[in-house]
């Protein structure tokens, strides 16, 4: 990093004080995401300055929409950018009291931002679970764009920003923190409100009309301003303001207290790792499965026992339905339009279960996912519908697991290995048997990993069946004395979740959609305490 000794002075920079200077473009989505985080830096011991590579109008729009609370200046003619020469924006510079660069941070990086804050003796400024990714690359710096003179040509006259460089063109919406208020629709006297709302905003079933009073009560329970943008919901990236979320929650039959779960759920769904864009648009069966853990189960009445996947509890059914209505109404993933799933999934009405932690002899699911037991949590998995596994006769825990492994072999497609993941929903009777035999949760998962294999004799190159084309990448293992391809890439591809009633030895296996960074990754978000 050059020390930019011949750099023109940074406007507003006072000597004798440390400074964080960030160079940005107004139309770079990563800059729009990253810059508001610096608002949290206390400015008594450090100066924070934004340097915009764009014109005054775009910059003013950027500062206003994103509510930037520190000084932002223009890098006229990109002179400072050329001197500091960042390859990408945003680039953050930590300058010491004499203006020398101590540290540089490129792009959006939560860990880096928190380290920067720590370096300044300040608390973390980038929470892990606010819906934004841990890391996001930036855009190339404007001074390196082909239409700009190369660095070194400092003597050139000031340049007007590129014609398309202004984010405010045509009033573009940035990743703003406050959205527009939702419009009001007044129905004609003779119009049936239930019928109108079913047609316009329903999930094919009648919904409760989101009247102004009901929505206001829901917004009030959230404790946030109604215009607050919680997320942008793919595939149309509609702004999910607190008010719009509340309107869908009313329609689904939620109690106002459910906003406490719904807001982190919407954030989690729009976490880039989960890739709800792909989940909404795929022709596969996938629907987001909502999994609830922790004290919130009792506090709001989430059900984890018999009929857990069914129509048993208002909390499960209304939260799952509100979430689906949000995807449909705000995200635009209409099942008669852009959602082209070949067969769909009954979970698209509502797909929300809670863990039966009381019947789980092991650590609960959210603890395995890295949270504390007393922390309420919501997890999301891009899920196929559940397939049942009956095992009533086997006396041994290992045999129960073996029976489950046969069902695991079928997820996605029987011959497809490595890509799929799965959740095993263990019923209380099965988990009791497995635990009684001294098997830990980790050992159960390892057993399922090592014993789920597809016999190699079931593959024929000539038939070109799905999964065969990738067989060269599969790992050969021996299962029950037979040469097999190992179904899963790692034990972590299998998750265990205990749920269901105490009578009936029926567990279930739930397959995934496309997984990993190229598909959908499971996410777990904390739910704030009561």
């Amino acid at each position, binding site marked *: 990093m050059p020390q930019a000794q011949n750099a023109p002075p940074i406007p507003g920079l006072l000597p004798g004080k440390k400074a964080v200077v960030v160079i940005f473009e107004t139309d770079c989505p990563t800059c729009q995401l990253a810059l508001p985080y610096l608002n949290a830096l206390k400015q008594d011991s450090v100066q924070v300055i934004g340097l915009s590579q764009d014109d005054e109008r775009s910059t003013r729009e950027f500062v206003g929409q994103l509510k930037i609370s520190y000084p932002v200046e223009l890098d006229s003619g990109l002179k400072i950018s050329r001197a500091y020469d960042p390859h990408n924006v945003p680039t953050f510079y930590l300058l010491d009291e004499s203006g020398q660069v101590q540290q540089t941070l490129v792009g959006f990086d939560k860990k880096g931002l928190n380290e920067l804050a720590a370096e300044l003796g300040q608390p973390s400024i980038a929470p892990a679970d606010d819906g934004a990714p841990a890391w996001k690359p930036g855009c190339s710096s404007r001074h390196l764009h082909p239409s700009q003179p190369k660095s070194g040509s400092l003597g050139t006259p000031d340049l007007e920003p590129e014609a398309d460089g202004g984010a405010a063109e045509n009033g573009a919406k940035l990743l703003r923190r406050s959205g527009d208020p*939702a419009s009001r*629709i007044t129905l004609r006297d003779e119009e049936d409100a239930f019928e109108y709302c079913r047609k316009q905003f329903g999930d094919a079933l009648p919904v409760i009309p989101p*009247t102004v009073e009901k929505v206001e009560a829901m917004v009030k329970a959230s404790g946030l301003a109604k215009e607050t943008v919680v997320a942008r919901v793919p595939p149309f990236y509609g702004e999910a303001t607190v008010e719009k979320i509340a309107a869908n929650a009313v329609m689904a039959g939620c109690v106002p207290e459910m906003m406490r779960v719904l807001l982190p759920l919407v954030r989690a769904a729009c976490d880039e790792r989960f890739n709800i864009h792909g989940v909404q648009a795929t022709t596969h069966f996938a629907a987001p499965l909502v999994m609830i853990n922790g004290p919130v189960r009792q506090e709001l009445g989430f059900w984890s026992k018999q009929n857990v996947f069914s129509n048993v509890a208002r909390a499960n059914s209304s939260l799952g339905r509100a979430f689906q209505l949000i995807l449909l109404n705000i995200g635009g993933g209409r099942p008669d339009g852009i959602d082209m799933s070949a067969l769909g999934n009954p979970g698209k009405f509502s797909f929300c279960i809670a863990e039966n932690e009381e019947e789980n002899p092991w650590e609960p699911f959210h603890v395995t996912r890295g949270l504390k037991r007393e922390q309420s949590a919501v997890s999301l998995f891009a899920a196929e519908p559940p397939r049942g596994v009956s095992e009533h006769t086997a006396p041994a825990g290992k045999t129960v697991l073996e029976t489950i492994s046969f069902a695991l072999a079928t997820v996605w497609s029987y011959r497809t290995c490595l890509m799929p993941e799965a959740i095993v929903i263990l019923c209380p009777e099965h988990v009791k048997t497995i635990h009684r035999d001294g098997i830990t949760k980790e050992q159960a998962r390892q057993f399922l990993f090592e014993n789920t294999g597809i016999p190699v004799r079931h593959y024929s190159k000539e038939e070109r069946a799905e999964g065969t084309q990738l067989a060269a990448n599969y790992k050969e293992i021996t299962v029950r004395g037979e040469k097999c391809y190992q179904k899963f890439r790692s034990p972590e591809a299998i998750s265990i979740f205990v749920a269901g009633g105490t009578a009936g030895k029926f567990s279930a296996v739930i397959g995934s959609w496309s997984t990993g960074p190229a598909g959908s990754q499971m996410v777990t978000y904390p739910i704030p305490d009561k």
Partner: protein
Amino acid sequence: MPVTIVHPGNESRPKAATPPARLASLAGKKIGLLDISKPGGSFFLDRLEEILRTKHGVAEVLRTKKPTFSKNAPPQIIEQLRGMDAVVEGLAD
């Protein structure tokens, strides 16, 4: 008493894009072929490239590929295709 409800949907209206004029001829044109990474996509696009080159006299065929079919094309892929006279985005399966 008329009922007033809060609009629960996305109210933003995307700007309408005007499709470019159809090419009168492919001769001498630059054509981009975007493989979306679905299995089998390359078979289709290989054949299409062959037809474009041998039967239509295109000046250039630029082949590029999305890292995954499950996500939008990253900006650098779109950037590669800038300047093409036409782009074919190939689906497969």
